[in-house]
């Protein structure tokens, strides 16, 4: 009797428990999903071995495929127009793309194929002449292999030295403060070791500064983060994209990682990029880079994103 009751009770209890667990797990899962979408920063870490060969030559269509697939994954959309709309872009916007063309020792300027893929994708929403690719100077852009274009046709390429000067209050190029309505940060996957660890999204905007302020970033982690917190950068930025087709995992030593990193959150994107560099450093027996202090300052003091790995959703793509 006891046995029967026990069995019945056991079965009843089991069924109830199973149903309960099922409902609970669904709720928890649903809850987690809601939590994740509200508080986690998504970073897409994508590679396409066919996008570039080992002589730094890109395949345009493979690079475009890499860019498009990464953008769609980041935004959960299936077309460029939908993806950019999800990022807040509209047809009247003027988009400034900050690139880093520092070519000291190894040229790590962004690959033209990637810049073209980005601009072609943006063209689904805005005219190509509403896109400005800029660097500190036009000369720097030219050294990076880009041709100056200040005409009324096609994507514009020029430096801050031709950008109408600097905003005296924000001490940033007027390309950012006056000319554009949206900003895209296109950094290169560059390891510099030391306290800064890498030159990525935060450091890229040092090139948007008035010249006299540029040396202030050396050794000043707070300053580095604060620049990206200035209203024109913080409020207009819609995307952070890192060109890792060829990057460096130690100072001055190139490596064909053959991928890109994309996020809406520059701090999470930078933390993930350092993670990519660290994976390679581990393979090569190098010490691991710590996340630089500028990232935690950017998170805690300036609310620019998160570098807390528990609050970052890293989605890996392999094309």
């Amino acid at each position, binding site marked *: 009797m006891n046995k029967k009751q026990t069995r019945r009770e056991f079965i009843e209890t089991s069924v109830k428990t199973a149903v309960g667990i099922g409902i609970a797990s669904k709720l928890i899962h649903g809850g987690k999903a809601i939590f994740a979408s509200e508080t986690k920063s998504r970073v897409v870490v994508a590679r396409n071995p066919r996008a570039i060969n080992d002589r730094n030559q890109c395949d345009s269509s493979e690079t475009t495929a890499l860019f498009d697939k990464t953008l769609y994954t980041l935004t959960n959309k299936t077309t460029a127009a939908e993806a950019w709309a999800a990022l807040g872009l509209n047809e009247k916007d003027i988009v400034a793309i900050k690139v880093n063309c520092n*070519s000291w*020792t*190894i040229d790590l300027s962004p690959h033209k194929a990637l810049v073209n893929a980005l601009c072609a994708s943006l063209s689904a929403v805005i005219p190509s002449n509403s896109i400005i690719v800029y660097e500190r100077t036009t000369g720097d852009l030219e050294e990076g292999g880009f041709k100056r274009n200040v005409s009324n046709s096609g994507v514009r390429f020029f430096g801050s030295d031709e950008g109408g000067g600097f905003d005296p209050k924000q001490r940033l190029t007027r390309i950012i403060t006056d000319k554009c309505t949206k900003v895209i940060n296109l950094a290169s996957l560059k390891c510099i070791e030391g306290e800064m660890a890498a030159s990525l999204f935060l450091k890229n905007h040092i090139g948007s500064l008035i010249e006299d302020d540029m*040396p202030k970033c050396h050794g000043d982690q707070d300053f580095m983060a604060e620049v990206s917190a200035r209203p024109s950068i913080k409020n207009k930025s819609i995307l952070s994209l890192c060109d890792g087709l060829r990057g460096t995992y130690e100072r001055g030593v190139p490596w064909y990682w053959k991928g890109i990193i994309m996020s809406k959150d520059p701090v999470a994107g930078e933390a993930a990029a350092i993670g990519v560099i660290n994976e390679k450093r581990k393979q090569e027996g190098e010490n691991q880079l710590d996340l630089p202090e500028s990232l935690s300052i950017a998170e805690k003091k300036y609310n620019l994103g998160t570098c807390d790995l528990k609050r970052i959703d890293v989605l890996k793509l392999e094309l």
Partner: protein
Amino acid sequence: MPNRIGLKPIYISFNLFIIFLATGLFYLYSFPINAQSTQISEKLHKIADSVSSAVPEGFIIKGKPRYFGTVEKKLENGTIFDYIDGAGENHIRHGFTGVCHITFENPDGDRIIADIYDMSSTANASSAFEDENICPPDSVLLNIGEKQTKTYNYPPDYMIYFIEKNYLVHLSLENDIYKQNIEAMAVQIINIIKED
């Protein structure tokens, strides 16, 4: 009234004294710096002029040579931080005073970059050459002429570092099929600096 007339020359003399003093102090402090910075620039200009003619066949100089100094003694195009950003700290530690940056290009768009760093003394140039933050550790040592150089082949790039007198020279080529051409260029640069 007599008192007022008596004070006026003293007042004028005092003002003149202050002006002379200020002018004297200005020259005392600024002239040696300007003179030194001009001297560095002139030396680099002279070397740059010669290097510009040592370019491998098929290449031509692109734009004008650019000159970068220190924060205290800027050259024409600014400071080393305007050129190599934060990594310039490494060169400063080894006595860097100025760099001349020259770019050459061939019709296919392949570039050669020549950077000639004035490290202010032979000892400083040597210590910079040994610093792995400046010359990465995985070099291949190669004798070019009688000079030991550090070379790096990261396809398609090829780089050479060497020192001569107080100069650290860095040659960077974007297409290693022209490897032998920049090795020949290195020999010419060594001779140019020797003769300087």
